[in-house]
């Protein structure tokens, strides 16, 4: 496990993780946003590598991806933007993207770049476990990268346990079987699911993602997990208010 990630989870506090789309709203906002997030007290950042067809995401993230691609973001350019990032921020950085752009870049080359830059882990929602195990795990490991797995309310206990076995940092607990940005707030059912997973006492910690937009949903999400990931709500915020208002967004999540 990446040291930065393991240290992070070694606290009691509820972790705030923010997802944003690289190259959005402006092509060169990527690094600025990461810096501002760290300064605002965010614990972990997921840098979205835009994809033309992000089928696990909702309209907000899809639109931001489309705009970022239109702005001219490419995998290569993202790596260039992140070239010096570790001289600027210390918090764990994760790249989240779809598998096709990674494949086209070359999995080996991609991992090498991540290692060089100091990326801690990857989230590739459409890279199936089996494929990963068979073909890519060895490469990832060689470059000190963790692959973060997702689980959903429909994931059977057995499979959660298997994922837990294979995971090495944290588990991304999708709040409901929903694309990002689809729901707001959590139902009883959702909460029971959080509790059920908590009671499984997995070896890895969990972060809840999807559907978290404010302090209320953040608190609900983290009552049975170690933190939560905010994506669509954050993207809407910087789109409407600009990236200078990032601190207020983060503040509002924790205090209200």
């Amino acid at each position, binding site marked *: 496990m990446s040291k930065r990630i393991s240290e992070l989870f070694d606290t009691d506090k509820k972790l705030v993780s923010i997802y944003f789309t690289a190259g959005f709203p402006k092509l060169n906002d990527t690094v600025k946003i990461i810096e501002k997030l760290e300064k605002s007290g965010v614990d972990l950042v997921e840098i979205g590598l835009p*994809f033309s*067809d992000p*089928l*696990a995401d909702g309209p907000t993230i899809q639109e931001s991806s489309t705009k970022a691609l239109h702005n001219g973001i490419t995998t290569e350019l993202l790596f260039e933007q992140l070239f010096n990032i570790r001289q600027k921020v210390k918090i764990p950085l994760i790249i989240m993207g779809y598998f*096709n752009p990674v494949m086209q870049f070359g999995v080996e080359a991609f991992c090498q770049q991540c290692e060089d830059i100091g990326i801690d882990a990857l989230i590739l929602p*459409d*890279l199936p476990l089996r494929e990963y195990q068979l073909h890519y795990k060895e490469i990832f490991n060689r470059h000190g990268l963790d692959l973060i797995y997702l689980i959903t309310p429909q994931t059977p206990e057995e499979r959660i346990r298997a994922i837990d076995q294979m995971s090495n940092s944290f588990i991304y607990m999708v709040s409901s*079987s929903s694309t990002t940005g689809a729901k707001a707030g959590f139902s009883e059912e959702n909460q029971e699911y959080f509790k059920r997973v908590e009671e499984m006492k997995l070896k890895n910690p969990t972060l809840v993602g999807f559907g978290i937009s404010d302090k209320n949903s953040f608190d609900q999400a983290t009552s049975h997990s170690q933190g939560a990931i905010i994506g669509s709500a954050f993207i809407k915020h910087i789109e409407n208010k600009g990236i200078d208002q990032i601190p207020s967004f983060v503040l509002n999540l924790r205090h209200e």
Partner: protein
Amino acid sequence: MSKYLADENGYYGAFGGAFIPEMLYPNTEELRVNYLEIMERDSFQKEFKYLLKDYVGRPTPLYYAQRLSDTYGTKIYLKREDLCHTGAHKVNNTIGQILMAKALGKKRIIAETGAGQHGVATATVCALMGIECVIYMGEIDISRQAPNVARMKLLGATVRDATSGSKTLKDATNEAIRDWINNPVDTHYIIGSVVGPHPYPDMVARFQSVISEETKKQLLEKEGTENPTHVIACVGGGSNAAGQFYHYLDREEVNIIAVEAAGKGVHSGESAATSALGKVGIIHGSKTLLMQTVDGQITEPYSISAGLDYPGIGPMHAHLYSSKRAQFVSITDAEAMAAGKRLSELEGIIPAIETAHAFAVLEHQKFQSDDIIVFNCSGRGDKDLQTYIDYFEL
């Protein structure tokens, strides 16, 4: 097991698999675990065959095209999928999948559609079974395929517009997948071609395989042999081709020709010739050939025929291409339109423009007088009349 069909993990050689987010895992897993067992049930087979016969109108004829044969100096047969209820082979698959959905206890159906053929075929079987139906269709396609939108509505389906991306088929597929993610328990997603994550390509190919199953029998009656020298079909996602090739895959003496849409020319920048232009990648949950930028962004294809306007091909076809089992031919808009007109005038059959692409091969390649060529006449041109009118200024 044929080396050209899916292995148990849904791989055709290097292609296929199920590259899906975890949110889709339960849905596809339920299907993967059950589909073969369900399909093999007597009750399933009985109802499937019954509906294909009495509702769809199968077997479709294998028609010897006399005047076309005379014109090209070879023996040409047409597998008449254009006579299927709703106008194309698509309904073979939707009949199969609606029965699958029922067997799985699903209460709601979703599907994507481009030109609307698959949407209509899906809305049709949902009406037949009295099951709720939501069809995703790109906003742009909705406005240019108004008659098919009306058909779906008349059949009681809800048509939902995909407003993301390029607002066409690819995006409708994304939206349908999202709907499925959001409704993992009660909903079955009827994919319209041999694309998508395992087990879809295999399942759809099996449902469509009735085409070559019938062809074998019919050709035996007519020519004393089950094997033509060539089978030819157009490839959008590849379902009509998969159905027409299926039982011939392992008969290496049968030449397989797959026809793609070259749009305004393979290298014009406006094309859908996936095998010529594509590279290995992941689209809609499947590893296959697809048209993409160097950066792995999926590009917008172009073809005059909405049904071939897809940036990928099914993994079976990617495998047939890379293993050289099939020959791939690219046909431009202009060649396809001319071929459609020719078939209309020579045989009184106005083909779908997708289908017309296949027939254009006759102008590309010389066949022997004793060759026996079977074309999949995958659909009728009624849906394409406006395109024919505009193109030929009728």
